[in-house]
């Protein structure tokens, strides 16, 4: 699986949604992405890439696109 596929799968598993719903998806944009869903998502993403996100990055992870930006940072080194 490519990194993008893994990333997408984390969202789809955390929120039980389909791929076509991912672009532009934001925190509180769907009912599943509330604070509980956020924890779920972070856990999925951390598992998928075997990383530990910083507190600030967990809080900044506010959209599908922003998440990619965060993971691309040097300390996580995920390339899309």
């Amino acid at each position: 699986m490519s990194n993008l596929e893994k990333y997408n799968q984390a969202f789809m598993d955390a929120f039980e949604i389909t791929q076509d719903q991912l672009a532009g998806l934001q925190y509180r944009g769907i009912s599943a992405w509330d604070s509980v869903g956020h924890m779920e998502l972070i856990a999925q993403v951390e598992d998928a890439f075997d990383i530990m996100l910083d507190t600030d990055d967990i809080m900044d992870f506010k959209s599908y696109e922003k998440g990619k930006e965060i993971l691309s940072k040097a300390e996580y080194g995920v390339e899309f």
Partner: protein
Amino acid sequence: MGRIWNLEEHKGKTALIEESGLQMTYEDLDSEAYALAERIGHRCLVFSLCRNEIGSVLGYTAFINHGIVPVMVSSHLEETLLDNLLKVYSPEYLWVPKEQADRFAGMARAYEAYQYVLLKTGYEIRYPLYEELGLLITTSGSTGSPKLVRQSYTNVLDNAQSIAEYLHLDDTERPITTLPMNYVYGLSIINSHFLVGAALLLTEKGLMQKEFWDFFREMEATSFGGVPYTYEMLDKLRFCRMKLPSLRTLTQAGGKITPELHEKFAGYAQETGKNFVVMYGAAEATSRMGYLPPEKAVEKKGSMGIPIPGGTFTLIGEDGEEVRTPMTPGELVYFGKNVTLGYAEKGADLALGDERHGRLETGDIAQFDADGYYYIIGRNKRFLKIYGNRVNLDEIDRLIKGRFQIEAASTGADDHMVIFVTEQDYAESVRDFVIETTKLNPAAFKVIVIDEIPKNESGKTLYSALLKEYT
């Protein structure tokens, strides 16, 4: 002087600080509350659609302090559930966030303050209110059951005094909201802190949001409360590494925290000179019944502590006799002035008096150790705590059956509900329906399709067999 608080006594102090920057002194709170109550002018029932904002707290203060009876519900309550509650209780007024007012077409705007609007419902039925009835609050936030807990003025005041005493609250406290005020735990924080003239920090932002922590630091919050799930989130956020010098006390209630997290947060508190206070309670006891003194937090891991000041615990064993030996399970019975009047399930019940007389059978199975510290080890009743909210499992089954005319049996563990159905075709619609009506996050439950729901000879569902077989 009001029925609960003497706000004037604290008049120079700040009472409320909202995330928007808006603040209110006790003096203003007192006069604003008076103005709102005067507009209503008589004892009656008001539905208060709550959120953590000044307008919402102002409404609550005005109502309870001036003999008007609020029904505390969430401003996010699903519409059909709210409509059902309104039909059942027929309030004279609603107190709602301004932008929600349009939804109540045909109701006249009677007053407006701090982004909240008072609407006169025009409902014709007026149910008589028992003279000591102070407020009504739900036992489970999410299923919209018409069952409400009837709390008296004495209940609210007595519990607030007791909490202020065991947490040693004073007017230098600044609790930050992490819980809704239509939830007894959240409301008890307001009640106990108004008593001592402290300032409440009000925010609708959650722990997962930077704005919450910015507000926390800027306003130097001294305490917050959390349900077990809150502590899981905090753990995930590496809370123990955050620098929060203003923080003095973390309280925990709304279900049993895992021993691992109890240990972790108790240890964190010990190292940083803060207090971690595990508490035990229920809406039927106004809010609190037990607490673990913070100096015992590490030593008595897994315990919910001892009775609050003014309360007592008794355990009743299976033989109906009082348990007197340590580490012997029994049903926990609580005695205290904060034991509420009883339930209301329909409008006519609002006239009922005290049905409990200070004694509450909690439905929890507990035991105590040699030092008299209590441990909750099980539950007699069919409910789960999901993210701190009580979810009545029979109610879930009933909602599904009512909507789809199919068999459903729900069970599970706290924060993990499992709903069993026998019709594959309905699995997804059941899932969507439960999310929609209860507003539960899909991560909180699973829908599992099985051939047949196991029952005993008399037709009772065997929930324990279900759980054992499928999880």
